[in-house]
């Protein structure tokens, strides 16, 4: 979106946050239900948004229904604040929600909308994380009928999903799911936690921040309320593993930009085929880099 472009609010009569008040009210009610039944995919009437389905319309509707003047919003896409998707969504909110601040700093935000990552820095009780979801139902790979999937969810019957994991171990000696790892919320419903990497799954468990998940195209909202159990689906004797960032010598790789050794790294392949690794969370990378620069200056 052209930053110089302004929505013609007056002529079109858009209300605060683009959505009309009835839409927001319905979404908020749905949210209350989703929070009351942790992990349950609550259906709602997903609205048309001025962007294509699949560009985060589910997350955006949640954000627009929740945000108010005084809130500070951060939008990230795969950890980065400056990718096209994140920039456009942020700009859309800036245009339609007068009085709302935006930020790139995780700790400043009250509301964080994210595509496929949970920020590195631990979230607090004062923050709400909104995740954009393409496919809300983890059972869709084993059961095509939604009616039957609903019964399976209701009865907590995830044996067929576990069978899929069993087959993975048989074939590849490990569970090969890299993203969207099925996760059991509060001991009952298993959710698709959106395409966050395995690295982020343990951070849903007993999270201090409220985590909301919105699927615009599939018209579902679900939630991981604060301080709620979120356990990845596993076998008793095959523990859940997160991504391994060790090099050939067994050393933990560091971010090539900020030097952090405790963050989720993106692999970059240069034109000559050489590989480097860099923090996926741009704010965390900047912060670590700033601290390190400050230290170097002090030493100097």
């Amino acid at each position: 979106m052209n930053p110089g472009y302004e929505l013609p609010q007056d002529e079109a009569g858009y209300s605060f946050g683009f959505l009309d008040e009835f839409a927001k009210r319905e979404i908020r009610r749905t949210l209350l239900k989703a929070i009351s039944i942790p992990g349950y995919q609550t259906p709602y009437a997903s609205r048309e948004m001025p962007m294509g389905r699949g560009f985060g319309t589910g997350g955006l509707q949640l954000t627009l229904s929740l945000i108010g003047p005084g809130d500070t919003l951060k939008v990230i896409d795969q950890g980065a604040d400056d990718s096209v998707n994140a920039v456009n969504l942020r700009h859309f909110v800036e245009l339609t929600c007068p009085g709302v601040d935006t930020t790139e700093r995780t700790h400043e935000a009250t509301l964080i909308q994210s595509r496929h990552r949970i920020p590195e820095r631990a979230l607090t009780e004062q923050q709400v994380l909104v995740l954009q979801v393409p496919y809300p139902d983890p059972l869709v790979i084993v059961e095509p009928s939604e009616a039957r999937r609903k019964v399976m969810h209701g009865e907590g019957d995830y044996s067929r999903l576990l069978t899929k994991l069993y087959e993975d171990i048989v074939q590849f000696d490990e569970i090969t799911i890299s993203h969207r790892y099925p996760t059991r919320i509060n001991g009952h419903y298993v959710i698709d936690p959106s395409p966050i990497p395995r690295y982020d799954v343990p951070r849903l468990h007993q999270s201090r921040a409220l985590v909301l998940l919105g699927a615009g195209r599939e018209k579902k909202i679900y939630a991981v309320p604060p301080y709620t159990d979120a356990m990845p689906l596993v076998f008793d004797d095959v523990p859940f593993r997160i991504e391994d960032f060790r090099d050939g010598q067994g050393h933990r790789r560091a971010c090539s930009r900020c030097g952090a050794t405790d963050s989720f790294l993106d692999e970059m392949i240069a034109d000559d085929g050489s590989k480097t690794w860099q923090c996926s969370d741009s704010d965390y990378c900047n912060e670590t880099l700033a601290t390190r620069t400050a230290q170097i200056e002090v030493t100097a």
Partner: protein
Amino acid sequence: MKKILEVRGLSKIHGQGCAHCYESTGPEMDTNLCPHCGSVVAAHGVSFELHAGEILGIMGESGSGKSTVVKTLFFDDAPSAGEAVFFDGEQQRSLFALNAAEQRWLRNHRFGMVYQNPHLGLNFNVSAGGNIAERLLMSDLTHYGQIRERASMLLARTEVLPERMDESPKQFSGGMQQRVQIAKALATQPPLLFLDEVTTGLDLSVQARILDLILEIQQELRTAMIVVTHDLGVIRLLAGRTLVMKYGRVIESGLTDQILEDPQHAYTQRLVASAL
């Protein structure tokens, strides 16, 4: 011998049903299609009991309602009327009064089913071992190593080569698929097993071996079984007692050798006389 199952007045109507359905159908009327409303009376007034470790045969032609009986007992289908009590240790469970979750629990823990069509009993998208794993997972065993061990033991018992356990049953012969189904059904060591035309469509030599296997298992595990078939040979080999069904009604029941050698009902006499 302990009673394990008691069925009373089991009925199943496919269609809307009307007040005349029962009186207008059955062997005397020579139809199971109600002339008043067009509903199919698949079963009516079926009553029997089953003791622990016993094999009961249900014999009849296609459309006699024999499969309907086991389908309702296995909760694949809901009955229109009737009662079935399952005696589970000290507990008595009225099958049709249970809620869906309780029924699923019984299916997974206490009952086993082997279908004529392996596609109904097996998931062809996962391996043979995975099929057994699924059933074990349903009964809340979530230890990968133990699941592997149990699955390979069960497949060995049903004479499926353990080295083929990670192959899809798609690549198996019909007889092998039935063996995998039997292994899957037995995974939770259920006290009650339903066998619906399990050897129909198999080669005679394969049939004989499957029947052998079923009998061996019955003797080893003392599993009670209901065997549904139109094949008198299967009934003779497996069942101690037999029900004969026609147009949804039980027209005759008795000791299997008596049913086969001294049938009382005209229909059974014809059935026995026409057997090869």
